[in-house]
């Protein structure tokens, strides 16, 4: 059973407010070790240099968007196995399908509550302790 307190999560979004909000919500479910990146490129740097247990990434970002990041992650020798959850808006089904095909492990619709976040993370990594 994965231990929430020991999980290292990377949150990727170009909006600081969304990153902070996600961080706060992650903290509510016991995940305290949170890295942040403001676009796919920077996220890639972090993901290749740090051991990560999960990436939660927005789709719309300058430099490299969420799908670009997902593809880069899946194609990277070290980072390729990091679980990936795509942050998306309501109604973006097409995007989520694309993400699933590219190897995303789940999606999360903004705005989300701590319960939904936990549920989605647990669907990906298993029940949190």
């Amino acid at each position, binding site marked *: 059973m*994965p*231990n929430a307190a*020991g999980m*290292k999560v990377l949150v990727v979004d*170009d*909006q*600081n*407010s*969304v*990153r*902070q*909000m996600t961080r*706060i919500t992650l903290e509510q479910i016991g995940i305290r070790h949170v*890295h*942040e*990146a*403001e676009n796919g490129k*920077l996220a890639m*740097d*972090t993901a290749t*240099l*740090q*051991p*990560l*247990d999960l990436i939660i990434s*927005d789709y*719309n*970002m*300058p430099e490299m968007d969420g799908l670009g990041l997902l593809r880069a992650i899946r194609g990277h*020798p*070290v*980072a*390729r*196995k*990091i*679980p990936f959850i795509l942050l998306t*808006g*309501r*109604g973006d*089904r097409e995007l*989520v*399908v694309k993400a*699933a095909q590219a*190897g*995303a*492990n*789940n*999606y999360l*619709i*903004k*705005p989300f509550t701590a319960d939904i976040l936990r549920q989605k993370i647990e*669907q*990906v*990594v*298993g029940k949190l302790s």
Partner: protein
Amino acid sequence: MTSLDELRLTFFDECSEAMQQIEVGLTELREGNGSDDIINAVFRSVHSVKGGAGIFGFEQLVRFAHAFETVLDAMRAGKLSPTQEILDVLLTAGDILSDLVTMSRAGDEIPADLGSECLAALEQIMSDGGLATEDGSAPAEFEGLDFMPVAFDQTGIDEPNTTDDPGLHVYEIVFRPAAGMLKKANEPLFLLRELRSLGTLELVAETGGLPSLEELDPTEPYIGWRGTLRTAATRDQVEEVFSFVDGDCELSIKDVTPPMATVSESPSDFAAPAEASAPLAPTAAATPAAASAAPAAAKSADTPTAAPKASPTKPAATTTRVELEKIDRVVNMVGELVIAQAMLGQIVQNLPEDITGRLAQMLDEVTHHTRELKDSVMSMRAQPISSVFQRMPRLVRELATKTGKKVRLEMLGENTEIDRSIIERLGDPLTHIIRNSIDHGIEVPGDRASVGKNEEGTIRLAAEHRGGRIVIEVSDDGGGLNPERVLNKAREKGLVGQDATLSEDEINNLVFLPGFSTAATVSDISGRGVGMDVVRRNIQDVGGRISLKSERGRGMTIQLALPLTLAVMDGMVIKVGYETYVVPMSVIVECLRPKRSDIHNLVSTSGMLNLRGNLVPIVDLAELLDLRKREMDSDERVVIITDAGEGTRVGIVVDELCGHQQVVIKSIEESYGSVPGVAGATILGNGRVAFILDVEKVSELASTPAPPVRGNGGAYAQPMSATIN
């Protein structure tokens, strides 16, 4: 403030940025400079606003942004081409979105029908294009999607791939980092992890090369590894792992795939070098082998990773929210430091030379650092001027629509940084100047065409650093001022004498006089009872200067020269009697030493100075402030011609000019009270306090029959006793 409130503020700050992007992007598109990148950027900005609004619960904002975004999305997918009509709707949508953001930020009640017209127009665009409008209330869950489940393990990427395919290769790998490899920022741990991600890796650390702890150089690798990798990867892929350390290590990769590979049990001590982060001290007491292995592990885990770790996390921390008050406190302290350093400089100067040598040198260094410190603190308060500029495109658009004129706004130098307290006070003057330009300057399309101008007028808004100041120019290619009309108007209003002869420049500058307005009819736009005199006042209040150049039929340019900061000011240090004062450089027009014959004494006032044919009232500061006069020839005295506001020139008679100097402004109002004629105080290099004169007030005081500043103890005796609590 709770963290949620702070986050909300962060969100609104982001919204401002997004709104600017939207504005700029749509304007570009409208001017026909469209590109996919621009459409994408605009879409992304609207999307960001929507996303954040959803998180913070601004429903109306979400709904509107959604409709907006839908059109942009169709556009970027190529399903909709950006016609002028559509772009006009989008520009309006941008304005409404901006209103919604502003209202949401202020916590105002948003009228339910706000933007409903525009919303309908957006939906119309979609239906005209034969496109379905997506409902913003789509389900929060998507059905029927399959995601790969992930087997979670605490080590994540470190977990070896345990799939046991018969098609696997087995490589025997020997990897011994060479001296100097770590210095090239290569981390063996990462290489081993990468290797492990390829399959099942079993390695034994070769610790034989480790020296004793005393001899150990933590920047050198001493450990090598030998073992096997069971993987589906090709030899090339395995070699690629080591591509960055090629030449910096001893490496051998042998394919030893047996018909049926069986690999020995993994040696248990592998984990130590790679994972342990045991502190250095305790291990020193352990067995020699373990003792020597541990420091190396600690080293490899700490030292080389420090550098690469720092860089990727840095972008997240590029900005920090700091209360303005805290920065102000630092600004103040730096001000004190500048003064203390100036005082120290004077003390050192007065010391005998044989002991000053090294001291003076050090002091030079301190001076240098202080200046840099001052500059960087000031830059902390600085903000790009774009926060004011970004309000202008909308203004121009709205005014152009209202007046039936075609106007294009060009903006340059939006990233020029200026003290935020000045920025806050620039909005109104700039708005007014631009209103004027559109209302009175730019002609209607027909008139423009008839004189061979482009039907579309251009207003150019530019900011730049120039000689320690920020210069903002607003220029238009309209009709310019009509000097005849200006002069007639000024005569009519009694602002100038009937027979005064003025140069064209002087005539143009009459518009800065209070109560002046050339428009025959008071329009809804610029005729709001605020004239250029108020604009000039606003600019002068922040220590700036305004000037105007107009060319009949060609347009005009208004230039604002602003100080970089309000905390430090350029001042002229002067002496009157035995007192020292500072006159702000921004009000000084010129300094001269007039001949006795040029000064005419009229009744009781100090007199008038004949300045190249114009009479300028002069104020004898010593007399006004009731200072003890110095015995000196009146021909020796200096007159500083100042701009006392509203275009009036006043000469201030002083005894001596001591020089131009940057002074740190200290408010005396806070600790003492407001004194008429005194704008503040500063501390000079010699440690003495000097008052900064408020020239406008001084000239007012001089023209009042019984000046309130009268006492027997000097400049401040009277008001001091009157206002002290």
